[in-house]
């Protein structure tokens, strides 16, 4: 590649693709001053995934259309990929097929130089001996922080396994043998979240791990892209490592080892859940049951038991939903928070980071980071516009937000989302959250992918 020293982008096009409930952003930087044609454009892809398309969009063909569009825009070369976290709605597009016809095969064919993922995806962070499941080893509370870091990463895999098991078990609860099936709305919510967190992303994860040079980032990670994306600075404001997160907790607790004790307990919890998921797999495949030789009712259940059995099934449904919500949130909080500085403008892409991920940046380095984020010009709305992913401290800090539509440098916001897929209005968990959308519409140049056919584009030009 020819030298690109001194090059600066003159414009940037942000393409937010219509991927239903998911994220996919292609950033194309134009270098008008470049002498070689190959240096004229540089491309950065942030996420490529979906968990559901609107009725107006062909669910089977859309992801391929997006992949082909990216291929065409990149003209054979993608420079950098950021996969914010491993949720299906962020990485399913990276999935490959054995015959090479997957959307992920197209992206891999663009030979990205660098792939950025959160530190939790680093193979080195994973414990090959995986504590807990099927093993007698475990780590005592408050000891071996590195090992807990590994267990945390291992717990994310445990969450995937549990999600798979929940997908199987929820089908069991919809059976109407001798009793009523589970409420369909509840079933849909469980299915959506368990699918988003399941192992279906495996080929996508593998593709991401092998398509370019990997950088597994955490808060403060330094990545110099001056050669690849001249004139552009990347900063990572999340996710914090466990050690970084512990610093916050330690400031608040009288027992300084509290954080590690709780971490150990939580990791063990997921390990047990994952091991138990194997049992559920066995049950649903009909291989066995808890007490294989015990007598069970083969015919109708006794009438005096039926009311309670119905209640119990509904209770289990609630419990599964609670579990998948918790693990969904844990996974969201591994999101890379990327702040991109280009041509005097700041662009913020926080993936699905929720308050707990933001906590480190907004608490420990509060003054420096709030100053840094004050003049953000473009904000990719966190987690498809959910109520937990745009912390009020962050939002209120944006000096660029304004009710005045003519204000120079007014904040631009873009949300990639789909109504009716996640949460519900009654519990104030609907996505996108109405109160947030209201704020965004009133105080920024608001854009959404909801009505688009292929993409919503925003072009920024830079001076000098």
């Amino acid at each position, binding site marked *: 590649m020819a030298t690109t020293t001194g090059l600066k982008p003159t414009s940037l096009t942000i393409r937010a693709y219509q991927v239903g409930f998911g994220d996919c952003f292609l950033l194309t930087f134009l270098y008008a001053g470049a002498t070689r044609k190959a240096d004229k454009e540089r491309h950065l892809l942030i996420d490529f995934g979906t968990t559901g398309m609107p009725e107006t969009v062909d669910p089977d063909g859309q992801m391929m259309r997006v992949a082909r569009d990216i291929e065409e825009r990149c003209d054979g070369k993608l420079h950098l990929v950021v996969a914010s976290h491993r949720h299906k709605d962020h990485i399913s597009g990276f999935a490959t097929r054995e015959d090479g016809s997957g959307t992920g095969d197209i992206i891999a064919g663009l030979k990205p130089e660098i792939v950025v993922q959160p530190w939790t995806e680093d193979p080195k962070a994973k414990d090959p001996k995986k504590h807990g499941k099927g093993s007698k080893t475990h780590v005592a509370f408050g000891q071996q922080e590195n090992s807990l870091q590994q267990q945390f990463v291992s717990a994310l895999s445990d969450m995937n396994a549990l999600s798979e098991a929940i997908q199987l078990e929820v089908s069991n609860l919809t059976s109407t043998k001798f009793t009523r099936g589970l409420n369909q709305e509840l079933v849909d919510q469980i299915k959506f979240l368990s699918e988003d967190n399941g192992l279906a992303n495996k080929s996508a994860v593998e593709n991401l791990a092998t398509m370019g040079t990997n950088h597994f980032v955490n808060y403060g990670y330094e990545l110099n892209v001056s050669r690849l994306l001249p004139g552009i600075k990347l900063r990572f404001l999340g996710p914090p490592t466990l050690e970084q997160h512990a610093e916050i907790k330690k400031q608040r607790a009288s027992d300084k080892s509290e954080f590690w004790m709780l971490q150990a307990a939580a990791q063990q*919890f997921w390990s047990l859940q994952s091991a138990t998921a194997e049992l559920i797999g066995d049950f649903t495949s009909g291989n066995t049951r*808890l007490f294989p030789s015990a007598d069970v009712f083969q015919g109708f259940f006794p009438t005096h038991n039926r009311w309670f059995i119905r209640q119990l099934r509904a209770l289990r449904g609630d419990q599964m939903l609670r579990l998948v919500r918790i693990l969904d949130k844990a996974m969201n909080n591994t999101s890379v928070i990327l702040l991109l500085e280009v041509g005097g403008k700041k662009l913020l892409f926080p993936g699905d980071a929720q308050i707990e991920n933001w906590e480190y940046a907004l608490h420990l380095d509060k003054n420096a980071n709030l100053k840094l984020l004050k003049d953000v010009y473009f904000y990719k709305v966190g987690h498809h516009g959910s109520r937990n992913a745009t*912390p009020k401290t962050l939002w209120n800090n944006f000096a660029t937000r304004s009710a005045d539509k003519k204000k120079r440098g007014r904040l631009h916001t873009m949300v990639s989302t789909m109504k009716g897929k996640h949460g519900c209005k009654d519990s104030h968990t609907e996505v996108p959250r109405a109160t947030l959308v209201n704020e965004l519409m009133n105080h920024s140049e608001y854009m959404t992918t909801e009505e688009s056919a292929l993409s919503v584009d925003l072009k920024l030009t830079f001076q000098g």
Partner: protein
Amino acid sequence: MIPVAKPRTRRLTVIAQDPSIRVDGRVLTTEVEIPAEEIAPGPRGYRVQVVDYDTSSGVLYQPLEYPPLQNAQYLDPFKEDAQRATNENLITDPRFHQQNVYAIVMKTLARFEFALGRRISWGFPGHQINVAPHAFADANAFYSKHDQALVFGYFKGLSGQVVFSCLSHDVVAHETTHAILDGLRNRYTDPSSPEQAGFHEGFSDVVALLSVFSLTEVVGTLLQPKGGQKRKGYKSDLISPAELTIEKLRDSVLLGLAKQMGHEMEGVRGNRAHALRRSVKLRPLTDKDDPKTYEKLEEFQEPHRRGEILVAAMLNAFLQAWRARITQLERGRPGAKLDLKMVVEQGTDAADQLLTMAIRALDYAPPTDLQFRDYLSALVTADKELVPDDSKYQYRKILLKSFRDYGVKPASFNSPDGSWEACNAQLTYDRSHFESMMRDPDEVFRFIWENRQALKLEEHAYTKVTSVRPCLRIGPDGFALRETVAEYIQMVTLQAQELQFFDPPIGKPEGMSPDEEVTLYGGGSLIFDEYGRLKYQVFNRINNSSLQTPRLKYLWKYGYFADKDTEENAFARLHLSRALNLTTNVAERF
């Protein structure tokens, strides 16, 4: 044929603590004595029905059937199995699991009914609580008011073996206590303060742990040399006094139990072993400490952590009480070795006595917005009423000191011993009927309405007498105490902007919308003597800014107003949040 009286109680085998506590490789079991009844298949009795349905596999296991009365005796179907050289079949037979939960729930209920001297209703409309011993494949167990149930999960443990939460004595007793407490004080599950939420957890832990320490098999095993190895200080069935200091008892019995509680069960018991460890190690406060109470520290705003203060105070009081009893054994022969069996008995008696006190105190506690200081005054008052002379074992003195060590002083600060002050209001009894007052809520309501000013009721609030319970309690000297305990609650729902009209004004939390709907609670426990005269009125007023302002502030800060829909299955949520340390800064949400 001469009719033979049916037995009033029966004995059933249960696992003493959990399957991880073994002696000579056998699971340690015990027999518990519970009220006798003709048990239907389930077991299904007059207060408890076991339904062995597994939602994860969609299977309903056949229920345990008990043989009818034979020769004036009820048989325990697992007695012989428990005594065999290997009793592993107890773990693999779901019917034993059904018996284990039935017996422990019944035992715990009977323990409360004995202490309070009356029948206790569940906190839901129904006489029988449903118990699911294998409800789901999940490391969880909880009480669900909505489902009128206690549900116990199972999961694959660290060893690769399936772990059953229904086989852990402390887990079953803990969840049963949640259910009973909800029946006795159904407003204690209301969103109020970290202390009220912590009380539900802490009290259930206290009952569960003291129930376990009331079993001679468990305490004896914890004091025995480990693994058959003679420990220093032991000789046959004698024990050196040097092994019986407070510190040594703390290590061997309290921490010993925490160590032996199956490590993998921590996910289910919400880290009770961990909480027990932490509670026992929670350092008593000194004059040099700043702040002077744990409750002022941020981490103790979390309900479970706050509940550990109660556990610490009660368990350290247990050790003190036990030690005081051992001192009496030593009297006249200092330094001599003691009979291990007698030492164990003193421990189990002390645990049993404290358990009775802990339960009786509930009648003397306010029915809404409970604080630990209220509970301490209630503990002292309840015991004083039944055992006026505290000089023998000095339980009240020990409890007051133990709570003080953790920054909790009695709410009743005007009386020298921390007990509630007797009611001295000028009341009229002229229009009330003594007989009806002992059982009729309408009659009691008439009495409090007649006396609403003297009793400082909020006249503009909705008021309801929620229960009237005559009770008969027998003291250690055989003395009978007859009382009638009635409870009333008051509530008023208004907009936040109206809080300013109280005198003194109740503070609106910062950031709360003026038209946000808020509900304020108040209420009282009325203790009538055997002549129908009001002895005590233990109450919280609605018009109490110092109580209501921090309550609203806490609820606002921790998201109650944002998440009102999460009330259902509150204990399932609480247990999960304890297992995973889940907290969200709701102030940051949209």
